[in-house]
């Protein structure tokens, strides 16, 4: 292991460029003679569109075109893609509405695009958008997850006669209920997993240009990898040959799941560029980002667990309501099943399980993947149940977990929904966290807080993730004549630091200088055919191993060239530290690379150059896990809460770069802190978004957190050759239940048994007030 190899805390090579204004985000890209788009958005959550009058807008200065949903239908455009296909137990297929790029007859959420204006300047486009007149017949709307399936709730899609998308079930309900009834102790939780605004720093943006002569379209957009967007645009929406559509993301200011999706505005910008044969650009502002970026989470979970007298859980029943919004986004409906479902009951060995999921339509923007994508929700359910179980049985919170953990002896362990956990030291990881947080010394600190009139609490959460989503990915490695290495990746670094980590791997496997490795990604013209992008904490495995295998292919070919040059047999050539050796003679990889470009030096019939493409494919994901501990203090008079200490112990397998993984832990924990304390999407009864700006939507800030102590318990994954487990989403799984556990601990002596996220000061204060009233009575 050298200074730049695997496991070294190498500083990120991309940061100087990004921190000195050298980034090239989509809004930094200006196309020659570009014109500008603006969108007319629905002010109503549910309304018939009676008429759209674009006449006034069309006649305004600088206006080039105005398009409505009908124009897109007339142009033969396709519909938005959704591949989910669930079936009710009755055999009835799921309700699956077709989503047009812009609706024609009815709008179903506030912020939906209903018309697009293209003009010479952004101001002219916005002025004209305001001049588009739409007549509506406003209909009753439903936004609430709790009430979405009520009998009297307005139907988002009247043709289905219900808001239920599908009732998906796993397990035998009657059997599980009978077993619950027979248990020594049953605990139940009823939890709201609050809806969140994902808030990447970069608002959504798109620019497109069309070359009439070649019929080639280029689309610039923030993304998490362009290949999927290219395929969707080409095949389903614009109906073009994929090779005629190129998607480019130079830099992207945060993905978090929602930037991997196709949005109507992107399609519209591409459509307008093609139709007008002029470059078209649109940059959404922050307000548009609030109403039209997909939101995250939004579940209600009622769960029940049955335990024996010793605290061993044997039965679990989980009933989930999921708000998918007005349409089916690409992945939203899948999250409880394929996101959280694959790991639930999480770290615990619970043999009997019934799981019911009811996704529902409401008059809101769709929900979709957000950091963790179903796994934070699943872990939150299990951790709240474990705390409830501990309280019911008078066990400590660590002991009840210890008694229910899946052990290493049980691995490989098949989960209910068919995933196989290969590795993990759950008890050891938890113990590291307990030790680091001085768990046993807590009572002294609680007593000290009490002298100041404050309630102190400590909370524990353990969690497991599933990472590596859809594990197939291409990687190409090319040696230049000067010995430098260029990587062409289908993964796409939008904050994760791939430039650094992949260069470390090239250095590790080939001995090439860290600074002589260049990563090219974010462009479908150069990325490998078999590429999916970066999401689901997958790049360490699919990209990292891609680099490893490409390096192996380079060495295999290089060995033959070296043997030829050293006049020996390839079998006698050994590669180590960047040098090919055969007994006393040797030649460096750089020399071999240079020779590979010279036909005179190459073995006969061998292609010139060192340029190898590989496809990594795995049939299993990996399972990062961890234990987080949060200690906090509550001012009972105001309900204000302050986090005093936070310990995160993560098992993300072999750590390629601890500096970068710590960054992932900090970021994930902060997003979890946001969900637990400050972030909450609020719609009113008419479906108007009330939390529609950062004046009303509370982002977590640096002042909300002390320094996070991040530690690793390295248990290499057994199912991939780097031993890595994805690190990107773990923090968001651990923080919410750890914080709730701490608040529960602080308030439990007052008799507070239930509280939901986000823990606003008023909510905490009210819980204390109500408990005091009950205690007094």
């Amino acid at each position, binding site marked *: 292991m050298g200074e730049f190899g695997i496991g070294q805390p190498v500083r990120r090579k991309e940061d100087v460029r990004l921190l000195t204004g050298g980034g090239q985000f989509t809004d930094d890209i200006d196309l020659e003679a570009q014109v500008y788009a603006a969108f007319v958005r629905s002010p109503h959550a549910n309304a018939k569109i009676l008429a759209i009058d674009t006449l006034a807008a069309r006649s305004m200065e600088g206006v080039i075109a105005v398009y409505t949903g009908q124009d897109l239908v007339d142009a033969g455009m396709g519909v938005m893609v959704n591949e989910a296909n669930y079936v009710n137990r009755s055999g009835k297929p799921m309700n699956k509405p077709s989503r047009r790029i812009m609706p024609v007859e009815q709008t179903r959420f506030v912020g939906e695009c209903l018309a697009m204006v293209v003009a010479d300047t952004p*101001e002219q486009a*916005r*002025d004209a958008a*305001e001049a588009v007149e739409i007549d509506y017949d406003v209909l009753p709307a439903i936004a609430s997850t709790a009430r979405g399936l009520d009998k009297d709730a307005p139907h988002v899609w009247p043709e289905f006669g219900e808001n239920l998308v599908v009732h998906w079930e796993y397990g035998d309900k009657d059997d599980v209920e009978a077993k619950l009834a027979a248990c020594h102790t049953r605990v139940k939780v009823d939890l709201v997993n609050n809806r969140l605004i994902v808030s990447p720093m970069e608002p959504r943006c798109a620019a497109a240009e069309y070359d009439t002569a070649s019929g080639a379209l280029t689309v610039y957009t923030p993304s998490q990898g362009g290949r999927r967007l290219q395929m969707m645009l080409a095949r389903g929406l614009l109906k073009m040959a994929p090779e005629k559509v190129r998607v480019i993301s130079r830099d992207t200011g945060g993905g978090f799941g929602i930037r991997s999706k196709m949005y109507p505005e992107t399609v519209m910008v591409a459509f307008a560029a093609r139709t007008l044969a002029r470059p078209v650009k649109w940059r959404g502002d922050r*307000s548009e980002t609030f109403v039209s970026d997909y939101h995250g989470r939004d579940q209600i979970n009622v769960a029940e667990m049955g335990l024996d007298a010793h605290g061993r859980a044997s039965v679990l029943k989980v009933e989930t309501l999921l708000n998918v919004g007005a349409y089916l986004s690409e992945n939203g409906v899948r999250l409880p099943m394929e996101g959280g479902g694959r790991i639930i009951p999480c770290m615990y060995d619970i043999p009997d399980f019934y799981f019911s999921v009811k996704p529902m339509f409401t008059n809101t923007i769709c929900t979709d993947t957000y950091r963790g994508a179903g796994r934070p929700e699943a872990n939150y359910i299990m951790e709240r149940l474990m705390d409830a179980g501990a309280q019911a049985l008078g066990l400590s919170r660590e002991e009840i977990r210890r008694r229910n953990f899946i052990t290493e002896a049980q691995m490989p362990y098949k989960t209910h929904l068919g995933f196989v956990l290969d590795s993990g030291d759950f008890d050891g990881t938890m113990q590291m966290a307990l030790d680091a947080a001085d768990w046993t010394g807590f009572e002294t600190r609680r007593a000290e807080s009490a002298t100041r009139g404050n309630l102190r609490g400590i909370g524990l959460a353990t969690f497991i993730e599933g990472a590596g989503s859809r594990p197939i990915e291409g990687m190409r490695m090319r040696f230049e004549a000067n010995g430098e290495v260029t990587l062409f990746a289908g993964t796409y670094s939008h904050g994760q630091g791939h430039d650094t980590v992949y260069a470390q791997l090239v250095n590790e496997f080939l001995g090439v200088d860290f600074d002589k490795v260049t990563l090219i990604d974010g462009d479908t013209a150069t990325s490998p055919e078999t590429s999916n992008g970066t999401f689901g904490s997958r790049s360490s495995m699919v990209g990292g191993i891609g680099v490893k295998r490409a390096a192996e292919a380079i060495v295999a070919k290089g060995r033959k060239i070296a043997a030829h040059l050293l006049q020996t047999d390839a079998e006698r050539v050994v590669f180590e530290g960047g040098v090919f050796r055969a007994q006393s003679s040797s030649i460096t990889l750089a020399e071999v690379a240079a020779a590979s470009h010279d036909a005179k030096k190459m073995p006969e019939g061998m292609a010139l150059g060192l340029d190898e493409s590989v496809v990594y494919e795995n049939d299993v994901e990996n399972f990062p896990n961890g234990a987080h501990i949060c200690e906090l203090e509550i001012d009972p*008079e*105001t309900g*204000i809460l302050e986090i005093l200490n936070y310990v995160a112990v993560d098992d993300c397998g072999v750590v390629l770069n601890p500096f970068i993984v710590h960054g992932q832990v900090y970021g994930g924990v902060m997003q979890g802190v946001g969900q637990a*304390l*400050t972030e909450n999407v*609020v719609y009113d009864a008419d479906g108007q978004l*009330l*939390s529609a700006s*950062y*004046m*009303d*939507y*509370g*982002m977590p800030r640096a002042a909300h957190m002390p320094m996070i102590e991040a530690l690793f318990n390295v248990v290499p994954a057994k199912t991939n050759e780097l031993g890595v487990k994805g690190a990107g989403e773990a923090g968001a799984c651990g923080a919410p239940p750890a914080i709730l556990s701490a608040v529960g601990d602080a308030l439990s002596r007052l008799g507070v048994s239930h509280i939901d996220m986000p823990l*606003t*000061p*008023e909510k905490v*204060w*009210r819980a204390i007030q109500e408990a005091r009233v009950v205690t007094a009575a």
Partner: protein
Amino acid sequence: MHNFNYHRAADVADAAAKLAATDDPKLLAGGMTLLPTLKNRLAAPSDLIDLAAIAGLKGISVEGKEVVVRAMTPHAVVATSADVQKALPALAQLAGNIGDPAVRHRGTIGGSVANSDPAADYPAACVGLDATIVTNQRKIAADDFFQGLFETALGHGEIITEVRFQIPDRAQYMKFRHPASGYAVVGVMVAQYGSKARVAVTGAGPCVFRVAEMEAALEKSFTPASVANIKVSAEQLMGDIHCSAEYRAHLITVYARRAVEAMVG
């Protein structure tokens, strides 16, 4: 943002002349509220009259028993002024906790006071510290100045030139910050002037207001216990998606008591 005509006023008289001569003008002070409003196309004034170049509207002085803050003085200047810190530390502390550093370096006292945002901090200082709002036309007691939600006594063509705070024997400002915006959900200024007391509350109602019952109790006995059990009725307060009126009412009592605690040590 819609188009508008931009004017840079040379002095107060020039600004007043331009106000009178244009259709639908707005005065631009620090722009901390006005500029986001324009950017979001929620307002479309015909003309913006920028007061930033008027040297006479900047600066701070202590004159007898008054701290005088001229209208275009940014919050950060008030917060760090040695004169204010010495004569009226509660005002320096209040100014130093408005918004964030960017807001404190651009936002001005005149702009804040003229806007009468229900959640702004300065109205509590004006009313709690018995200030006089001086305009190009007259002097207005703070008690008469703030009239309602974004409503003040300012007439058309009237420009705030300075705010004159009465220096108390002692004063303290305590606030509960909005978790998203940082504005005051409840801000309480308590001040003592000889046998008189003032308690001004911002953030909780549609407009800054005084709590007469607390003032009377403090005038009898200036102790935390005097206000600890005085409740403000929630009926006159605001409730929104963040904090109910009932919670705001509760916080007024808590923060008033804590302010007095901090004052009496």
